[in-house]
């Protein structure tokens, strides 16, 4: 449906920091006066399952879940999850793809095959892909835990909020002792 609501779908695997990222988007949108709805599945996420987190903001938001074909941006923390939710994008939507692969147990034990060259598959289907290797960037910064904030930095380039506004929200969401490394990570992501 045509409306002014912005639909951001953040996907990954339990433990990757998907929820931190979607919380940051929700908080910044509320701080800027938008109505916000957010939804993620609970219960199974801690069992190695897929974690999709839907964030929607606009003047007035009704449904808490993004419908297939209506996402402005899919931010994928993991390649297979990016492939899984690619069809949620609008025709002119954008995929931010973290080049990280987390093998499901059925792949690790040889029962399934992890799809090859996911970025190519996405592009072959006409999807506008921004690739990021956030894990490598995080390792270089000496802290593998800032992957989420790096990806948030990349996402921030495509949303209407200023760098200062983002940093304020991130500062509120992460504990004091991790604040400066997270702000650096955000800058690094935004600089891509």
């Amino acid at each position, binding site marked *: *449906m045509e*409306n002014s609501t912005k639909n951001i779908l953040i996907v990954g*695997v339990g433990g990757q920091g998907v929820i931190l990222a979607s*919380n940051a988007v*929700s*908080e910044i949108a*509320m701080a800027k006066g938008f*109505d*916000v*709805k*957010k*939804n*993620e*599945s*609970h*219960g*199974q996420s*801690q*069992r*190695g*399952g*897929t974690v999709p987190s839907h964030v929607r903001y606009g003047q007035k*938001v*009704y*449904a*808490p*879940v993004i*419908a*297939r*074909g*209506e996402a402005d941006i899919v931010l994928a923390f993991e390649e*297979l*999850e990016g*492939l*899984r939710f*690619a*069809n949620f994008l*609008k*025709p002119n939507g954008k995929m931010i793809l973290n080049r990280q692969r987390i*093998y*499901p*147990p*059925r*792949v*690790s*034990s*040889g*029962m*399934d*095959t*992890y*799809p*090859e060259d*996911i970025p190519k*598959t*996405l592009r072959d*289907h006409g999807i506008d892909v921004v690739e990021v290797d956030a894990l490598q960037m995080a390792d270089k910064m000496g802290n593998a835990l800032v992957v989420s904030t790096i990806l948030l930095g990349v996402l921030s380039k495509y949303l209407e909020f200023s760098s200062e506004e983002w940093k304020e929200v991130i500062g509120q969401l992460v504990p004091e002792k991790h604040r400066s490394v997270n702000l650096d990570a955000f800058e690094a992501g935004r600089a891509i």
Partner: protein
Amino acid sequence: MKEIMLGNNAIARGAYEAGTKVAVGYPGTPSTEIMQAVRQYEGIYSEWSVNEKVAMDVAIGACLGGIRTMVVMKHAGLNVASDPFYPISFMGVNGGLVLVCSDDVGAVSSPTEQDTRIYAKLFHIPMLEPSDSQEAKDFVALAFDISERFDTPVFLRTTNGVSHSMGIVALGDRVEKRQPVFDKSSPKFRPQGGVHPTVMHQNVHDRLKRLEDYANEAEVNRIEWGDRRIGIITSGTPYQYLKELLPEASFLKLGLTYPLAGALIRHFADQVEEVLVIEELEPFLEEQISAMGIPVKGSELRPAVGALSVEILSERLKDLLTKFGKSLPERRPPLPGLIIRFPTLCAGCPHLAVYYAVRAVQKKNKDREIVIMGDIGCYSLGIAAPHNMLSCAFAMGSGISAAHGLSHALPENAGKTILAYIGDSTFLHAGMPALLNAMYNQSDITVILADNRTTAMTGGQEHAGTGVTLTGDVHGPARIPDIIASLGVRDIHQVDPYDYKATRKAIEAAIDFKGVSIVMATGACRMFPAKIKEEPFRVVSERCTGCGMCLSIYCPALILSGEKTGKGKPKVKIDPFICVGCSFCSQVCPADAIGSR
């Protein structure tokens, strides 16, 4: 002050603001977070009760004491709690009593999908259904007001769509309206003693009539006039989906969905050309509105199972949407090459070890087929591939009795060895009477009691067996081995599930025993209440023969290394980030290829 809140957290906030003094519940998706949020508020006594029936009884006692009380559970829990809930509807309340029940629509984490709205009719009680987090909070205070004004328990019903979605909530202050008062001689709460149940029943019917009058005036039932060619009657999250799809339509949004606002519904239906009733699961509203003689469409335009969504409704209501000039976005199929990421038992999970030991015993005893009647918990994942361990798992504490029943259905057990598999929290919830019954009636079954020291499936809640309460008080835990022994079980094998040989031997001995035997496998969950991660193990690649024994544990830490043996068999390695160092695979490996260094 505004905050983005999960629907469940908003309900907890609502309980706080409404002056709730006692809140009780039992964990269950999608309701669990409510009690976990309630415990953080000052001025509310909160507890995990041992099961939902007990929680309901505790709540009723507190309500009779004159204070505002909330009781929280999931849909399956309401079935358990329904026995005491029925009479409290007859008796009426002293302080307000609100039942919050969350339905797992779509069976995300349940063996069933159930529409608990039908209980409102059965119990003759008013029901409120919020559509978002703000309403979830506001409706708690309203529920208490209705409860005290109409002398009735009130049902606040949510689904995953509200409980597990977040929205902006305007916070208010706490208002305490009630002080404890208890008149021990009041006839009101003494069915058969003070007032005859049939008189109470009549009162309940009279109460419903007054509630229907109230429903016609209640602000939570509101008409939003739009294009009068179509009038949509709806509630809960379906309201949100329809407002998104067709905001131009006229809406009658029902917040109070039982008893129905008859006059308001007639007034609305009279002024629109066509009436649609759109709801999730059973045609609860639709049947009642049709019975009022109002022609409606509903069931034929929606699926009768699973959660609705904007996407589903946009397909089903395509003709209507086209009539209003709406163009639907293209719904593209999934991209090629996708594989499913199934939820799994975690690396080092004690259930993986016990399941492996059971399979080993089965391999050694081919003459008899081991059948396992399962129960509710993480181990329920064992009902699916690749484990395929459980023949059924349907309700809390039911596996033991189902095993006992099955043992009587099969002549001489038909070459089968019948096991029940149950966890600690589930055993303490409803497994104890089942075991007592099996003992009393001289059953011949083996119970595997896998005690992982927490309620793992719902995220690691404490329970009576850990001795830690919802609010973190620590006291002497209920001792499960003593409970089992006191019920008269003679053949008890206590093992560490990570000791492979001991577990296997214990299972073998237990199934040989004539009568009720128990293998109690005690090993702490590796995820909850705190992560347990020891030094990871590793595979010495030169020694790996590619036999695949360790892979059949189905531990997520064991993965193919990409190397092959001389005979071309794939070798295994251990993912050090995932491995928690439980050592089980090193005991299973016949080539001694797995070690801790």
